[in-house]
């Protein structure tokens, strides 16, 4: 069987908050099901011409984002075609911003994006930092995404994309409209680190299943795995968030 092919974009430059954990989750969850899988690191100047199934791009600092921007833009047409052919894309934080139309940093640099997602980002002064709980209410069972956000960009989702999830706790895209991330077909962007996929195994499986359906037909279903440990981790984070909220009101009151 031909292995599932994952392109890991700029692993050296765009890996700020343990984003490589997302690759670990995709790979291990294939291996545990004995699905052959292959990861290719794609650096600046490397070719993208391969039949990739999943493309991942993580977060980077503003400086690194400027460095990869030109390279990413040189692949623009190719990427548009690959996405039309069913490529599954996951982009986190800085990578998410680059998938959008543009990103105006708080230093005033305008970074053009790929335009694969109808989102635009403007840098803010205060960073939005903390644990996030957000609900993907467009999916059956309305599953919850848990992660940690740390970004200065404020992202707005335009009419040609939908939010990935509705924020229940945290800031999300911009701290004002209770949306988190964006999606359009099989292209997903999010601010959530954590790492995202090990902490949200259902989303890892959603991406894998979407990619494998293209090869094996719409009826393809992944076998379930034992996710007891991941579930325990999610439950402990949710409890932690609630206890932090309870403890926060007193210092907040004293600040006034």
């Amino acid at each position: 069987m031909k292995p599932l092919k994952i392109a890991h974009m700029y692993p050296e430059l765009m890996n700020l908050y343990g984003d490589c954990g997302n690759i670990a989750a995709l790979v291990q969850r294939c291996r545990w099901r004995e699905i052959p899988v292959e990861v290719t690191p794609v650096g600046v100047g490397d070719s993208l011409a391969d039949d990739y199934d999943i493309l991942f791009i993580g977060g980077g600092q503003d400086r690194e984002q400027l460095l990869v921007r030109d390279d990413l833009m040189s692949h623009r047409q190719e990427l548009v075609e690959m996405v039309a052919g069913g490529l599954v894309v996951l982009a986190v934080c800085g990578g998410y911003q680059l998938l959008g139309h543009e990103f105006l940093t708080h230093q005033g640099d305008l970074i053009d994006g790929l335009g694969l997602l109808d989102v635009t980002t403007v840098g803010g002064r205060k960073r939005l930092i903390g644990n996030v709980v957000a609900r993907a209410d467009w999916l059956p069972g309305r599953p919850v995404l848990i992660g940690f956000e740390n970004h200065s960009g404020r992202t707005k989702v335009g009419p040609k994309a939908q939010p990935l999830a509705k924020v229940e706790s945290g800031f999300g895209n911009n701290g004002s409209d209770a949306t988190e991330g964006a999606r359009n077909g099989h292209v997903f962007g999010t601010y959530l680190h954590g790492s995202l996929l090990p902490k949200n195994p259902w989303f890892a499986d959603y991406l894998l299943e979407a990619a494998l359906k293209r090869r094996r037909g719409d009826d393809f279903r992944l076998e379930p795995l034992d996710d007891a440990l991941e579930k325990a981790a999610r439950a402990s984070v949710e409890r932690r968030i609630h206890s932090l909220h309870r403890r926060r009101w007193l210092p907040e009151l004293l600040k006034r």
Partner: protein
Amino acid sequence: MNLKTKVALATGYLGGRVSRALHLGGGTSLPGAIALRLDADIIGRLAERLDRGPVLITATNGKTTTANMLASICRAEQLKVVHNAAGANLAFGVAAALMAGEKQGLTADTDETIGLFEVDEATVKNVTGQLKPQVFTVGNIFRDQLDRFGEVDETARLIAQGIDFLDDRATLVLNADDPRVAALGREASQSTLYFGLETAGTGAQGGAQDSKDCLICGEPLVYSERYFSHLGKYACQNCGFTRPPPAVTAINLKLSLSETKFTLVTPSGEAEVVLPVPALYNVYNALAAAAAALASGISLNSVVSGLNDFTPAFGRFETITVADRRVRLMLIKNPTGFDQAIEALHIETGPKNILIAINDNLADGTDVSWLWDVGLERLGPTGILAVSGTRAYDMAVRLKYAGVAEATVTVEPDLGVALESALSAVPPGSELFVLPTYTALLDLRRHLEKVAGVSAFWSAREATAGREGGAS
């Protein structure tokens, strides 16, 4: 000293006494917090009384160890030391340490007194102007508590802002092997003293590497030697930014779990050092301390005996014996520290008993994403493997995805329970390696104190301060 400063001092001391009497803590920061409120210039007023001047030490990793090595060197030189020992490294802690020194009469005019201040990276810019350090030491800039500073570049920028406050006569002591640190010396008007390693790379590389591109032009840096993470011998082929030749170096390294031998090479000559702690990162800490000492006019003899006599700081490879079992505490604060702890476990072969304790309180960093930047795939053979802390389950998930069989890992979020069951599972005569984040370390230390009679955190610190006061 004017009346305002005197009132601030008296009120601060009183606050410390009340805090101690009420068992609210050792008062290592509170007296400073009170005094700074009453006299905003108190750090400057007290620091100018240090006749051998203040030395400032900052880094993301190893500040406390470097400062303690330097304190040991200063004691060997028969200097009296004012020192914010064991981690009170914000402005309050610096002020409190100066106040404690003042109270003990260390700053009286005729004494040979030096000030050693480890300072938090974000606080450097707030205290440098007042402290006026004659030696400004930067050990390294790794990923650390990114939830607080945002980005690694921001950490470097905050330290550079501190350098802007420095007097032109000061000396910058910089790690040549860390491109981000070495770059700080390029445009500085002060004189620079670089330290670094002159030995073949260790071959081992941790997961996270933060400075991969030239900070001047953005092209990839080429490494001819890489010691760990982004530390090594690098050069930019494009703009010519290159590792400055270090004046203080270590050669002939011999590593073991109990000690590290090397030849210290300095402008004042060469000498053999037997450092009583393991791991390459401690060689960097020793080089930083040695270079800062030499820049402060301390003799090479004192540098060597100070390093040889060094006692590890609280939780930094500290060994505590409990019921015939040796507990080795290895504080892990960020990916590089964790990677280095894992490397240290590989210095000697055989399975290790390990307890990893991950908390996500403010002092630890509230984001645990960094666990995914750690090369846990390199953990090696284990006996007991337990995880604990507020984020025990996150750590367990990390181990699962690193390929560690789920059944071999014990998860117990309660630190006391986890420590006791790990200790009872470890056979007598063997070792338990405990890798905690900062607040987990404090908590575990309290439990160890109960079972082994280890002195409390702040009283241990008081004992250190007392010893320094005696200048024995």
